[in-house]
């Protein structure tokens, strides 16, 4: 016992003791399920998982012949292409405008952060009601202003933009707050020196702020990318993939295959594996690029 105590008492080793609970939880609730999902993807398994028939690569072959799965990948790509740049760059610009610690900025930061702490269900229901084609407040207001009747939630080609907007609106605040924190860490002496050299605010932002907060930028970019590729909650509550599957993301489709009464857990797992590979590939590329810059 004494030897064990002495062994773990060294600072470098006792650190492992502190992180052990988190690592155990990560292994139990992330790593093991991930490995099991890989395994499940090679089987035909119903929702109750009481039978499992090995079918090799059949689930993957079926996925790449499934027009709905391919459509969901397209929808997810469009959503990511819209949400990520607007969120990452837009929140950076807003953060730059509200980074100073005065009353107005503190109030604005709280306002931007409010949607982040609201439940996705509440947000989805709220926007669905506000944008309803016939009884929605915004729809009615636009009609009364002579802007015509816009069916925000039921127009293929338009609804994906609406859903992207709702998602950006919801999580914009967290990105902005993280940026604000990073911007506030930049040494004021750099800005003073630049001002003395005659650099305006915009030049200071581009040549001082942006390079200084690069690690934060990469963090937000990677997390938003991964988050966007896994979008589910907002879509589930607002459109559930409609109209005509034009907002059905990959995770939405996977959920419908996994947890409907017509469940096929093996098939859903195979699609999850494909999505995992895509996310991992993109994340590794970004990480590699980030390291190269540093």
């Amino acid at each position, binding site marked *: 016992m004494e030897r064990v105590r002495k062994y773990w008492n060294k600072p470098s080793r006792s650190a492992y003791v502190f992180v052990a609970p988190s690592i*155990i939880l990560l292994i139990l609730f992330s790593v093991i399920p991930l490995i099991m999902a890989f395994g499940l993807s090679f089987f035909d398994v119903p929702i109750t998982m009481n039978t499992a028939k090995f079918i090799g690569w059949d689930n993957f072959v079926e996925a790449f012949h499934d027009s709905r799965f391919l459509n969901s990948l397209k929808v997810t790509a469009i959503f990511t292409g819209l949400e990520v740049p607007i969120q990452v760059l837009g929140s950076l610009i807003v953060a730059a405008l509200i980074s100073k610690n005065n009353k107005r900025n503190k109030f604005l930061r709280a306002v931007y952060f409010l949607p982040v702490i609201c439940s996705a269900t509440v947000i989805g229901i709220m926007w669905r009601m506000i944008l309803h084609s016939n009884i929605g407040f915004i729809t009615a207001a636009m009609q009364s202003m002579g802007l015509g009747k816009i069916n925000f939630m039921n127009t293929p080609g338009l609804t994906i933009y609406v859903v992207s907007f709702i998602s950006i609106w919801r999580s914009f605040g967290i990105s902005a707050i993280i940026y604000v924190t990073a911007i506030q860490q930049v040494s004021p002496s750099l800005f003073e020196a630049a001002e003395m050299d005659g650099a305006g605010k915009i030049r200071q932002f581009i040549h001082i702020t942006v390079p200084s907060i690069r690690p934060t930028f990469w963090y937000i970019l990677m997390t938003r990318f991964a988050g966007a590729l896994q979008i589910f909650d907002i879509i589930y509550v607002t459109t559930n993939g409609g109209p005509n599957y034009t907002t059905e993301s990959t995770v939405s489709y996977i959920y419908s295959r996994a947890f409907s009464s017509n469940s096929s857990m093996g098939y859903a797992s195979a699609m999850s594996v494909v999505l995992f590979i895509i996310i991992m590939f993109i994340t590794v590329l970004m990480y590699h690029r980030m390291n190269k810059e540093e």
Partner: protein
Amino acid sequence: MKRITAVGLSVILAASLAACGGSDGKEDTKESGKAKGTTITFWNSFTGADGDMLVEMVDKFNKENKDGITVDMDISADFDSQLSTAFAAGEGPTMMLSSSAYRFTYGDYLQDVSDVFDKTDLDKADFIQSYLDYCSDGDSLYFVPFQIVGYYMYWNKDLFEAAGLDPDTPPATWNEWQEWAGKLTDESKNVYGSGISYDYAYQIAHIMQRFGGLAVTDDNGKWKANFAGNAGYEKFLNMYKAMADKGDNPVEADTDSMASAGQIGMTAGGPWVTAGLDTAGVNYGIGLIPQGDAGDMNSVEVIGFAITTAASDEEKEAAYKFIEWWNTENDDGSSPALEWSLTNGFPAYTYSVQDKDEYKENEKLSVMSSADPEAPTDFITDSNFPGINAVLTDVIPEMINAVAFGNASVDAALEKAQSSADKIVEDYNK
């Protein structure tokens, strides 16, 4: 200090591992002696206002029952995933409330409850046989009916009057529905004559089967899909498309809200639609959905109590006591089943409740129960077809979306539906 720290860390480590453990004492309950004093778990997904009433009823049972039985109810919006993960882990509730179609998905996890009529004072003859058939698979009964969910026609009497139609006379045929939808529509007021949603598979299914019959039938022992070449379905889809193109039917997922806002002349929905209409003060009529070329039908879905394989014999008997209490008349001449019907507007599944004066005097319930008792009650597929949910969640939505958004002609949409349905049917014909 170091010793205290080490002990503290060990406790945290042990606690984090224990938190991941699974046992919740179910083993103790399974090994309990008798039904008396037994606690049973009861899962369902009644998260709405009816859920509040269910909570009150369960509390009442817990207080009133003389056997000391406690029903521990868990209502979850995520009932499906909760149930599937529980069963996969070898766990599960004693009793659950769900669609009888779950006997196909979770059949291996449900107990045969045919003996409920032997072990309680419930009279099998009092239950409407077609609903019991819906809850059975072969000779085994897996659900005891709790709620009958049919779809009904609702019309806005004020809009009818404004359009010059008799507010007390709803359309008797689908031709009338389509014609009157045109008369009721008023673009300047955002009013649509017809309220059929493209995103409401159950509503679409109830309507389209009036046109073209069942989507999957038993053809000499083999399941057969009936989409392609179905003249009735073709007529329905053409009618829907025509109304949507003309502006008499909105292309909208949520038509129930529009009906509550007084913007829909006629719609079809379950009994829950009345809650929104009543709250909004809409002056509406309620009737049976017009029959069509497929003949008289009274399509319903049956929600029922089921006992899972996770239940011990004592828990099963305790659950039977609850089900018996639910369907037994008390000293006031009422029963929870009657109260449930009267309050929530769902038609009764027993003759004794249907014969009650309060039931007969309830206008909504008397309309809902006025369907031809001999009319088939199958909902969109043969009641024994296990793949009904696949038809409802995949085939019908794809078909109606393709027509609503102009992706495909009606014929092409029906062909695609046939192909999708054939794949589903093939799985059950093996």
